[in-house]
């Protein structure tokens, strides 16, 4: 069973091919994670949609509480 953190990393990498990716386990006990993603996939995408794109990757985990909170920073590379 891969760790939740590694699952987060691999799904984001597969979905967005990020130029930069940082995944932080804020609290293992509380299942809180932060992700900082820089990816061309977010170019021209409104802020809320970017967050939805990331949240949707973990819909099941967020609904079940496997991931309680996912802090998201999702930006396109500086143009």
């Amino acid at each position, binding site marked *: 069973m891969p760790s939740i953190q590694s699952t987060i990393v691999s799904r984001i990498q597969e979905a967005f091919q990020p130029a930069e990716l940082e995944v932080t386990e804020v609290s293992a006990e509380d299942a809180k994670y932060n992700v900082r993603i820089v990816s061309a996939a977010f170019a021209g995408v409104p802020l809320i949609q970017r*967050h939805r794109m990331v949240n*949707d990757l973990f819909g099941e985990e967020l609904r079940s509480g496997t991931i309680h909170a996912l802090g998201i920073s999702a930006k396109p590379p500086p143009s």
Partner: protein
Amino acid sequence: MLKVSSKEHYAEIKKKAEGSLGLVVHFSATWCEPCTAVNEHLIKQATEYGDNVVFAEVDCGELGDVCEAEGVESVPFVAYFRTPLVGDDRRVERVADVAGAKFDQIDMNTHSLFGEKGGNGVQQKDFATVDDYLHYLTKRPGVVMFITGTPSRPRCGFTGRLCELVHQLGVPFIYYDVMTSDAVCERLKIYANWPTYPQVYVDGELIGGWDICRELSDEGELKSTLKR
């Protein structure tokens, strides 16, 4: 507006509130000048809400033991109690407080906890489906925040931080405490396609959760987003 005459009377009033949406208690004192205005304000609300919400006044000069039991150390002080929607234990639960004569906060809490329109026709049971209720809740004009707990008694760090942030901007808002209803708490995540709380709506449109608000704030855009 009921005038509390004793500790026993206070307990009776709380019991009475179990048959309504909740209870609003104004802790006042005869020597407190702002208390007069707060009381007049709450008497108007009591008239508006009728049997839906119980309003009571405690004179702290006479009933120090009631004030002490409720942890009230200043006047005017308004404490909000909510009657649980379901379950065998119907005891009212303390869910929000307003310390001082802050009429905007009094209005925010009364309208957020018990609904506008004196609480009539705006409760979950007044809608055919949970989604109909969610449509009503989310489409209200202005800033509507779905939070865990209340601004004065947040039940999670994100909720506390968000409410503080919006308060500091001076932007008025109403809230819905998702702990009020399990059905709302679970269904809204799907309805909104947003898996966590808090959720912030502006004029019926979801703008996001804590992360987005913090990011907008860092970029100096949160106030304009909430005010648009």
